[in-house]
């Protein structure tokens, strides 16, 4: 088991009102699974993704990631876990606009103290994996949307994380480019990566092996994908 969520609760306090975003989530995701998390807005899927991605901690419950209890870690410890265990792919790519593709991919390595020459080597390898070896020195605004998302995937891969966590990765792309990106995820899954995909598009979710549907902060259904 790679991800083990037990009795996870997340309650936001808005003024004096307590708003429960997640109520009692129990979830287990194994190594090399390809899981899609679905749900309408307000269902708690963003909150769940933030917790799985160690950007946030639950109000209550335990989260075991790769055997480590991360539910009560400090901000700095979480930063380390994110760096080591999680590779994020965002809907809006979230690349640094002034940095080259190569430098963007190097970023996670900067924060774990990899030497400059190794950073360059590893980042180049990651960019080759997503087929962007010839665009390494381009800035994000010189790349197409699909290319930007591939840079972001290379960045997510570069540290060999336990999970690739993709939040609406095709949301800003046309459907053809979206399909290309989904093919990359497929390849990554085939080569042994664990992928957690957050989406509200049924046809995107169908690329996965397992679909977890959330509603009102609870797991509504958890079933194998029909593909």
């Amino acid at each position, binding site marked *: 088991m790679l991800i083990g969520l037990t009795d996870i609760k997340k309650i936001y306090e808005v003024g004096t009102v307590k708003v429960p975003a997640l109520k009692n989530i129990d979830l287990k995701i194994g190594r090399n699974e390809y899981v899609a998390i679905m749900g309408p807005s307000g269902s708690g899927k963003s909150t769940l993704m933030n917790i799985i991605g160690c950007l946030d901690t639950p109000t209550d419950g335990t989260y075991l990631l790769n055997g480590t209890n991360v539910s009560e870690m400090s901000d700095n410890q979480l930063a380390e876990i994110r*760096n080591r265990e999680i590779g994020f792919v965002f809907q809006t790519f979230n690349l640094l606009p002034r940095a080259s593709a190569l430098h963007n991919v190097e970023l996670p390595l900067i924060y774990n103290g990899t030497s400059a020459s190794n950073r360059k080597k590893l980042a180049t390898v990651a960019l080759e994996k997503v087929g962007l070896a010839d665009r390494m020195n381009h800035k994000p605004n010189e790349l197409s949307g699909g290319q930007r998302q591939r840079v972001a995937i290379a960045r997510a891969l570069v540290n060999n994380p336990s999970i690739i966590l993709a939040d609406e990765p095709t949301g800003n792309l046309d459907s053809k480019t979206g399909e290309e990106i989904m093919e990359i995820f497929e390849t990554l899954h085939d080569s042994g990566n664990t992928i957690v995909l957050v989406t509200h598009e049924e046809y995107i979710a169908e690329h996965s092996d397992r679909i977890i549907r959330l509603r009102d902060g609870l797991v509504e259904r958890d079933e194998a994908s029909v593909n």
Partner: protein
Amino acid sequence: MNIGESVNIALTAIRANKMRSILTLIGIIIGVMTIIAMQSLITGLRNSINQQVTILGSNVFQVQKYPAIQTGQLDKKYRNRKDITLEQALAVKKNVTSAKAVGAEVNTWGRTIVYKDKKTTPNVLVFGTTPEFLTNNGYEIENGRFLTEQDVHYKNSNAVIGVDVVEKLFPNENPIGRDVKMDGQRYQVIGVFEKKGQVLGNSLDNVVVMPITRFEKQFGKWRSVSILVQSYTSETYQETLDQTIGVLRAVRKVPFGEDNDFEIFTNDTLIDFFDNLTKYVRIVAIAIASISLLVAGVGIMNIMLVSVTERTREIGIRKSLGAKKRDILWQFLIEAIVLSEFGGIIGIIIGLGIGKLVESITPVPADVPFGTVIFGLVFCSGVGILFGVYPALKAARMDPIEALGFE
């Protein structure tokens, strides 16, 4: 996180906002420039004065009727003093046992020297002195010889002349052995000084030196004599000073309990006076610079706050990729430091440039005030840290989820 990376980020950010950065830096540039330009000129002046004063030679002090530096009207207290005479100088020479050498000198300015049909401009400085003059004032003989005890004793009409006088009167001749005229009286040139150069625009080579006894015969005895006393070592210096004061008080019959009726002038006197004089200039300049640096610091804080807000998303991205609080803190702190150092370096360059400019159009020399340059750089880092820490903390404390969602 490594500093090289932070510096790179900082330089990229500054380059991306050139106009904004330069406007922010004007305060720092003006502050640093003011201090450096002022310090450059004060250091230049001080070094030049120091050079002139150390011409007195090591362990030498000078006794004279008037203070070394007079400002404004000559005080009655000084004018009513008895002149110091050659006899008093000789008494010092005879009785101050710890002195290595005791010389006496008087001078008159604005004399014309004539040789055949050639004459100097009427601005030659003429000294009447003793053989000790040479070491006490740091002159060297290039040609011929200097005055001897015999010259002084027999009031010989001998003269040693400076290079400027040689150039005017003897452009193509060896001056040694020639007779020159001054105020109708005839002197034989027995030696020529080595070139000594200028101090604050005044040539030290436009001089004629003759025996003090001969000087008094021509120009009268009414001038107060300066006594130059050299001690053997710096350890005996104080003893020599005390002995000299004692002897002079005795021969000048100063009553017990009253102040000396003469002034002691040492190598440090002029420098002390200069430092005192420039102290206020420094304080004012430092005050102006401090205010402009304070304002500049607020400007830097403001621009860093803007930068942190603008780059909220970048902060979110970096945090999601594993940047810790201290990574973000350092990134923005180093950016503030790089920004203010950038201004500091520009300020130093302009300040030194102003110093050089003043040097080239006035006789005031400029010098690179290394201490102040280092101080300026350190101070700029201080300004960067002081005013950069709040924006950097703000950045470091951002919540990654909120920062990522920032539009």
